[in-house]
């Protein structure tokens, strides 16, 4: 199994605030990772560096052996936490935009996902609720045949039924040559998706464990394991 993403000694500061403090980790192809940690642990900063949206940092990140930049944007599908669509766009425009600029975009899959997730093409972005917006972002991002998917709080605002539907879609369409990195606070929702968990605290990886190892060795869910680790960390 080959490596898609490698970060070594990654450092990122915002003025006096240290967002990433020597983060080192590796991600293999064909796996779904959970990048988990409390607020301000550096999850979003790490994803933005990998998505070539933050260019100034210390240390090294390599995606398929290449530094994040124009070339890697074609391989990486990043789903940001916030809304990144311009307010004048309609749902249909977002599909056309992705289709125009990403060679790996599967328009048929996008049309299918829009139907599955009950999104009307004629709806204006600004009229979508938080949950509908989350569905739209997922629909367009998952319609790419990217090598690496970075999903930042992808399930925020999504109702339980839709969440189940999306998880099924991810499992059904997951390509063994690609990799998904999920950053989320809703750990129980994604439990069954994850192959491996990386726990992040104050910009450093503190644990890297296979999901099956947690389930089999501790008999706990990933959410329970997460709580145990961070309670323990807090106590020390």
């Amino acid at each position, binding site marked *: 199994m080959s490596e898609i993403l490698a970060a070594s000694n990654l450092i990122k500061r*915002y003025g006096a605030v240290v967002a990433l403090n020597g983060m080192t980790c590796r991600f293999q192809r064909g796996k779904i990772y959970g990048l988990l940690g409390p607020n301000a642990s550096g999850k979003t900063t790490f994803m933005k560096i990998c998505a070539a949206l*933050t260019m100034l940092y210390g240390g090294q990140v390599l995606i398929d052996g290449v530094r994040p930049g124009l070339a890697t944007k074609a391989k990486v599908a990043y789903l940001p936490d916030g809304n990144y669509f311009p307010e004048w766009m309609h749902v249909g425009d977002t599909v056309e*935009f992705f289709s125009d600029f990403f060679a790996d975009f599967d328009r048929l899959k996008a049309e299918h996902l829009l139907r599955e997730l009950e999104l009307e093409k004629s709806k204006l972005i600004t009229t979508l609720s938080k949950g509908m917006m989350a569905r739209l972002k997922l629909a367009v991002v998952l319609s790419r045949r990217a090598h690496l998917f970075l999903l930042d709080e992808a399930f925020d605002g999504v109702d339980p039924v839709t969440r189940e539907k999306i998880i099924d879609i991810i499992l059904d369409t997951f390509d063994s040559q690609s990799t998904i990195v999920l950053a989320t606070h809703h750990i129980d929702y994604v439990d069954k998706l994850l192959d491996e968990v990386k726990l992040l605290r104050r910009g450093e990886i503190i644990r890297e464990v296979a999901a099956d190892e947690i389930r089999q060795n501790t008999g706990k869910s990933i959410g329970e394991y997460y709580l145990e680790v961070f309670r323990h960390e807090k106590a020390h």
Partner: protein
Amino acid sequence: MKKLIKWQFRAYRSGALLAYLALFVVTGVAAWMGYTLLNVPAQLAVGVFRILLWGSLGGILAVQYIPYLTLKVEGTKADDGTLPLHVPLSHRQTLLAKLLACLPLLAAYIALNTLMFHALPLDLPQLAELNPQRAAVRATFYILGVSLLINALVVRTLLRGASKWHAANFATDSALLICYALLGGILIGFIGVVGLPDPLQAALSATIGIALTYLNGYLLEHYTPQLEFL
């Protein structure tokens, strides 16, 4: 590139851009009506027309560029409107496409100017009919001005976060504004008064403008922090 330009034009559907475009048109109509129907002095009509016109053009430019450069605007979230940053296209191409998408506005300005020239008395000092060569010079000055503006924004983005103190950031912004206003004034003034023939003026300012646009793209790709928010 064609697709990029197509999406730049589609951005004119934005509410803020439409509002500025409406202001642009209403200004011209109001100035003409004020003069012909309400007997507003022609000098005043032209003066107000000019101020509002440049105001609306400036607003359109700001709406086109500021979300792209992701300078944090009060009331917006970090990711708002930053979709073009996610696509695998160079900033140089995108900035060039934005420049091209703004050119029809300049054409509209020149058309309005010409209309005003014919609708108002000919002896007004601020209003002169633009021959094609002068129009080309104006167009290239516009390209140069926009490139300088973007350069100022890029440098501002580079300097952002240098200090947590609002006062220091405000001082930096003010210093940048003064520096670039002076630089723009001197550059455009120099090209204008050096006595070069119009085609040469146009060629010179277009060359500097396009070179600056490429430099801006390069700086964005390699040195600016982009989406720099926690």
